[in-house]
C-alpha cells in the first residue's frame, strides 16, 4: 500500500508543478497588420511576441547599464518623442565623448524591413542590437559584460524566466526580447492613415502636397511604409571626414558607392536632421538638395538624373502633406515609454 501512496503523491506533485508552470506561461500578443499593409517580413514563429517578452525588451531598451559606463541606452539615440530617432543631433553621440558617423534612424515598422542600418549591413532584426552595444563609439561594451551584468540583476533573472520560461540569459534571448519591443513600434495612425481609412480629410495644401508627392517622391518613398527600402545614390557628396561610402562598405561593389537605404518618411516632421549623416537640418534643406545642390554621379539613381524640379509653392505644399505623416498616438503611446513612465521624459537624454 505504501508504494501506491508514494506513486500517487509523486503523480500529484508532477501534476501540481505542471499546473503551476502552465499558469506562468507568457501571455501572447497578437501582432496586428494595419489594413492594406503588406505581410511583415519578420518571422514571428521564431520569436513569438508575448507581453513578458515585450516588457523585458522595453526594460533592456531603456537601460543605460548596457553601455560600458552606464550612461547610454538604446533610447539615448532612439527617443520616442523624436520618432525613435535622435532629436536635433546630426550624428549620434557615443561612449566617452565620441561621435558616430551616422544619423540614428527612426525605429518604426521594423517588422517590414529585411535589412538594417543605412547600408543594410545587418541582415536580421535580432542581430541588430549587437552593433550599437559593442561599437566603441556607441555603447562601447562587450557582449560578455552585458550578459554578466544582466545575470547579476535579480529583476532581469525574473523577467527572462517570465518571458522565455527559463532564467537563462544569453545573447539570443536578450536580442529576441529587444526585437519584441521594437517590433511593436508600429506607426500607422497618422492623419494620412486616417484619410486613407476615410476617417479624416486632407485640407487643400495637404491634398496638393499629396499629389506632388505621388508624382515626384513616391517611386522610392513607396506607400504605405513610405520607403521601398532599396539602396540608392541620391547625389550626396562624400564627406571626407566620415568617408562613408554606404552600401559599398557591405557589398564591396563600386556600383554601390554612396548608396544609402531610402528612409521611411513616417513621422518625418519630427525626425530632423535628415540624411545618413544628418547633413540636412530641415525639410527645406532636403528640397534644396533635390532641386538644386545634388551632384549627379555615374551611379546616381536614374530617377534623379535631372534632379527633382520643385517650385517654392510645391515645397510648401509638400511640407503640409509630410506633416500629415506625424503619428502622435505612436509618439505618445505610454506602452513605448520607459518602464514606469507614461511618456518619454525629456531628461532621458543627457548628451
Amino acid at each position, binding site marked *: *500500500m505504501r*508504494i*501506491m501512496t508514494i*506513486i500517487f503523491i509523486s503523480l500529484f506533485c508532477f501534476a501540481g508543478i505542471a499546473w503551476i508552470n502552465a499558469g506562468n506561461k507568457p501571455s501572447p500578443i497578437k501582432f496586428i497588420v494595419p489594413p492594406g499593409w503588406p505581410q511583415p517580413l519578420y518571422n514571428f514563429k*521564431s*520569436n513569438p511576441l508575448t507581453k513578458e517578452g515585450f516588457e523585458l525588451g522595453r526594460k533592456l531598451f531603456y537601460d543605460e547599464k548596457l553601455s560600458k559606463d552606464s550612461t547610454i541606452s538604446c533610447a539615448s539615440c532612439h527617443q520616442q518623442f523624436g520618432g525613435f530617432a535622435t532629436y536635433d543631433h546630426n550624428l549620434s553621440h557615443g561612449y566617452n565623448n565620441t561621435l558616430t558617423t551616422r544619423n540614428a534612424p527612426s525605429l518604426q515598422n521594423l517588422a517590414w524591413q529585411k535589412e538594417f*542600418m543605412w547600408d543594410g*549591413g*545587418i*541582415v*536580421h532584426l*535580432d*542581430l541588430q542590437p*549587437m*552593433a550599437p*552595444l*559593442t*561599437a566603441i563609439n556607441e555603447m562601447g561594451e562587450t*557582449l*560578455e559584460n552585458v*550578459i554578466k551584468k544582466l545575470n547579476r540583476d535579480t529583476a532581469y533573472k525574473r523577467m527572462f524566466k517570465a518571458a522565455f520560461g527559463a532564467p537563462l540569459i*544569453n*545573447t*539570443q534571448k536578450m*536580442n*529576441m526580447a529587444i526585437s519584441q519591443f521594437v517590433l511593436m513600434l508600429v506607426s500607422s495612425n497618422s492623419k494620412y492613415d486616417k484619410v486613407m481609412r476615410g476617417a479624416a480629410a486632407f485640407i487643400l495644401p495637404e491634398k496638393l502636397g499629396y499629389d506632388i508627392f505621388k508624382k515626384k517622391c513616391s517611386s522610392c518613398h513607396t506607400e504605405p511604409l513610405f520607403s521601398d527600402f532599396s539602396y540608392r545614390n541620391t547625389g550626396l557628396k562624400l564627406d571626407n571626414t566620415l568617408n562613408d561610402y554606404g552600401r559599398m*562598405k*557591405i557589398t*564591396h561593389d563600386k556600383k554601390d558607392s554612396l548608396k544609402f537605404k531610402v528612409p521611411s518618411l513616417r513621422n518625418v516632421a519630427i525626425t530632423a536632421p535628415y540624411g545618413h549623416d544628418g547633413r540636412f537640418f530641415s525639410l527645406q534643406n532636403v528640397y534644396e538638395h533635390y532641386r538644386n545642390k545634388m551632384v549627379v554621379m555615374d551611379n546616381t539613381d536614374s530617377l534623379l538624373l535631372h534632379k527633382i524640379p520643385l517650385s517654392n509653392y510645391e515645397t510648401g505644399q509638400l511640407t503640409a502633406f509630410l506633416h500629415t505623416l506625424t503619428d502622435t498616438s505612436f509618439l505618445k503611446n505610454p506602452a513605448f515609454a520607459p518602464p514606469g513612465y507614461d511618456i518619454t521624459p525629456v531628461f532621458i537624454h543627457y548628451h
Partner: protein
Amino acid sequence: MRKGYFVIVLFICLATGGFTFIYKNKEATTAIHFKNLVGNKELKLFDETYTNNFGEPFVINKFRYYISHISIVDGSDKEINLSNNYYLVNEDDSLSKMIQLPAAGIKSISFLIGVDSAKNISGVQTGSLDPMNGMFWTWNSGYVFAKLEGQSDSSHAPAHSFTWDVGGFRARENALRRIKLNVPAGRSSADNVIVVQADILKWFSGAHPLKISQSPVCHQPGVLAMQIADNYSAMFSIAP
C-alpha cells in the same frame, strides 16, 4: 497482487531507462583531437616568436576556427552526417580541441571551416555560435570563420598588429571551405583517437603567397579573406 503489479511496472520503467543509458554509453565513438602547430612545433600562444616562409617573425595571441557540417565514413563504409553540430576550436581552450564522433574505424572525415550561410542570416544563435564568443561581425552580419591574431615586427599596422579574421558567406565573397581527410590505412581499429593537425604556416603560403608586411589586417569578407581561406584549407592533416 496490486502492489506486485506496480512494482513490476516500476522495475520495467527503470530497467528500460537504465539499459538505454548503458547502450548509449557503449555506442561506438571516436575522438577527434585538433592539434595546432607552427611548422612542426606545437603552437604556444603569446610566448613564442615564429617565422613564416618569408622570414617574417610573428607572435600569436588568438587562434580559433569553426568546424561544421562534419561528414564521416565509418569502418563499414557508412556515411554519417553531423550537419547540426558546430564546433569552435579555440587554442586557448583545451576542451574545445576535442570532438567526439559517433562512429568507429573512421576511414575518412570531411568538414567545413566556417559557418553555412543559413546560420549567418537567421537571427542570434547559441552555444558555440553565440556571438559572445567574439567570432561575429556585428556591423556587417556574419561569422568570422577563422581567426589568427597576434603581433609582427613586419606589420605596419598600429601596434604592429597582425590580425587575420576570415569570413564571408555571400556568393562572390564565399570563404567557406570544405576539407576532406583520409585516415591513413593500417591503423588499429581499436584506436579511437584521430589527431588532426593544423599547421599555421600554411596560412601564409599555399595557393597564394601572403606576406604580413603586405596585408597585416583582414577584417572583412572579400578577396583577401578568400585567399587566406584558400591557403588555410590546406593546413589540416591527420597524424600518422
